[in-house]
């Protein structure tokens, strides 16, 4: 009898401890709600410039405002997943987050509008499309921290070599220089594709084509679609699907030709993206790459690159419609569930004033004035070409629509891969993609 009683008590204690542990979360929440806690939580991508800058400036921000900056870092897609969960749950876990331009349509419903931070001085110091990129349905939600675009990065030593110049002139009938058009790009790529050690295998490629299973492949192809005249990109007014029209087909054919006809790029294009491309270039296996502008900096770092000191940068190539590229900017945002919105706004302005730190950390920033002041310094030769690319006549953002992630994953990436693998022609692949996109978009 006594034994039974004791056991009952123990069981009850176990059960109640379960409930108590559940309650402890609420206590933490309530203390935050009271505002007694002088801390703001910043969500960033681990290892990214946003992480470094947040860390470097935390002490100064505390000195100025009395608020401690708590940094939460997660992998790239983890930022999106966590922020999405925050927006859905409205838990108030984060006060600031640094996000990719792509994520605004899906997250905007849970972000704080920042119109009051957008002064004329601020807007005038930004590249075209940078404020628009952080907006959704005409409301501004993002404070830019850096912007970027694919640029041409090339082996200056190879391009300036007298023998190469003479050989190229003899073969193609014009002077060897960093290519500015599709035709020049194709010619130069073919010229530099060779077997350098005479073992019967090609070990140097002219350039690369991106076909990996991520958004990089899409952005890379859309750069060329823009150059061929695509505007707007992929989806037009009133949900009109543009993806199987001439600029898109021509640009995809251009990439397919580099891979299949010219064979001036590595055959494993469907595994190729920024990381793989830069590895090839840094190991001296490609003469050029169209890579995010900031890749110039590590290309000239002898700790990372075997070709350091031999690298040049030029603007993105142009097509029939001129220079075009898809910018890849990042922004700081404030979840509307934050309990410390005014301090969070102060933080956004604080970080914007220190935008220079992103230039030092990454090699790009958001503000034109910082681009200009650094462009004359050694080690930042990529900035002038990048400014040209970012201001190019056909440089434009991807469409700001909720369905973009799905369109990219379910239609655009597979279409690029079908074309590059030869399973479908570019026209067939893009007709297929157009059908998929029509299904994904809401009925008009």
């Amino acid at each position, binding site marked *: 009898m006594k034994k039974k009683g004791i056991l009952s008590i123990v069981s009850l204690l*176990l*059960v109640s401890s379960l409930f108590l542990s559940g309650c402890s979360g609420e206590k933490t929440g309530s203390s935050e709600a009271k505002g007694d806690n002088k801390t703001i939580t910043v969500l960033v991508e681990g290892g990214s410039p946003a992480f470094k800058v947040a860390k470097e400036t935390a002490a100064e921000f505390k000195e100025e405002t009395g608020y401690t900056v708590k940094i939460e870092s997660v992998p790239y897609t983890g930022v999106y997943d966590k922020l999405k969960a925050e*927006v859905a749950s409205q838990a108030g876990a984060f006060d600031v987050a640094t996000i990719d331009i792509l994520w605004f349509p899906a997250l905007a*419903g849970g972000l704080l509008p920042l119109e009051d931070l957008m002064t004329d001085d601020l807007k005038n110091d930004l590249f075209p499309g940078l404020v628009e990129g952080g907006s959704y349905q005409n409301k501004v939600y993002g404070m830019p921290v850096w912007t970027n675009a694919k640029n041409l990065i090339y082996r200056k030593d190879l391009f300036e070599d007298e023998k190469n110049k003479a050989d190229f002139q003899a073969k193609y009938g014009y002077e060897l220089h960093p290519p500015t058009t599709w035709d020049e790009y194709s010619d130069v790529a073919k010229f530099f594709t060779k077997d350098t050690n005479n073992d019967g295998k090609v070990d140097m490629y002219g350039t690369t084509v991106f076909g990996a299973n991520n958004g990089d492949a899409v952005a890379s192809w859309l750069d060329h679609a823009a150059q061929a005249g695509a505007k707007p990109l992929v989806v037009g007014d009133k949900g009109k699907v543009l993806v199987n029209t001439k600029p898109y087909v021509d640009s995809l054919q251009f990439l397919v030709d580099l891979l299949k006809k010219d064979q001036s790029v590595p055959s494993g294009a469907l*595994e190729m993206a920024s990381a793989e491309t830069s590895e090839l270039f840094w190991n001296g296996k490609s003469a050029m790459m169209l890579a995010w502008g900031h890749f110039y900096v590590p290309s000239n770092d002898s700790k990372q690159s075997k070709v350091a000191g031999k690298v040049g940068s030029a603007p993105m190539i142009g097509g029939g419609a001129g220079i075009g590229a898809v910018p890849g900017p990042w922004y700081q945002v404030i979840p509307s569930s934050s309990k410390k919105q005014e301090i969070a706004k102060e933080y956004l302005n604080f970080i914007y004033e220190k935008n220079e730190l992103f230039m030092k950390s990454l090699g790009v920033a958001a503000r034109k004035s910082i681009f200009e002041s650094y462009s004359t310094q050694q080690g930042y030769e990529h900035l002038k070409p990048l400014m040209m690319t970012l201001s190019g006549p056909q440089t434009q953002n991807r469409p700001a629509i909720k369905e973009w992630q799905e369109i990219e994953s379910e239609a655009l990436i597979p279409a690029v*891969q*079908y074309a590059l*693998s030869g399973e479908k022609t570019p026209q067939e692949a893009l007709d297929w993609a157009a059908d998929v996109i029509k299904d994904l978009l809401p009925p008009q």
Partner: protein
Amino acid sequence: MRLKNGALSTIFFFPAGIFMLVFLVYPIFLLIRDSFYKIDIINPSLREFVGFANYTNSLTSERFLKALWNTVVYIGVAVGFEFILGLILALLLSNAFKGSQFIRTLLLSPLMLAPLVTGIIWKFMLNDQFGIVNWGLYKLGILSDPHQILWLSDSRFALYSTIIADIWLTTPFIMLVLLAGIKGIPISLYESADMDGANKWHKFRYITFPSLIPVATVALLIRMIDAARTFDIVWVLTQGGPGFSSELLSTYMYKTLTRYGEVGQSSAMAVIFIIILLVLSSFFITKMWSPRRRHS
């Protein structure tokens, strides 16, 4: 006496029961409930009851059926090879020989790796530019060009590349379970068989294999369910590409939920998946673990 024991059992069951309710039954209830709605994750108040629309959309979707088929192929090929290789290795190691303990330890080492790490290792090995597999085959003269097989970027090979990584990772599990099963077979059965003049094949056919059936059933069932849920290896190696050629149900459900925000649709897919696995498990247990057969 009976009453006391019953009450005691109830008391002991209670904590585990609550745990099950909170962490298993309730989430499944939420999952099933969500599968009947169209849910906007950003505005949860916009919750629209759509009946079985999420189910019919899934079952008639080419994408879903392709992912389902890939999952079936993945399970069939991966578990099939794992079982055969695991059985061979278990039989080899069941005869103690000098160094067998050491070799067993070596063979078990892949089991220590997280699937995510395995994915990264194989991604480097199978890369057509830097990968050791293609260069090894080229040096052996099997390939005429080190870039000849694009393991991860050819839609014909991508799914099988992920399967290779899974086989390498998980065969040791099957080996270990079967080895334990073999060790558990009474020696007297083999001694009797020897006296009756049985050869190695007869001993395997009539003693070893029948004795292993219950153990093998458990191993295969666990492994099949785990293979069905595979996510990490595929996510690291191919993310379901190129062009959905290596997309499994798990990766497709993940994308649908976290990337596209379609809670209802992904919930319906998950429910369908659970039902399929339950049917598979029931069939397996009923057919292979029949008390009647064992009795006879």
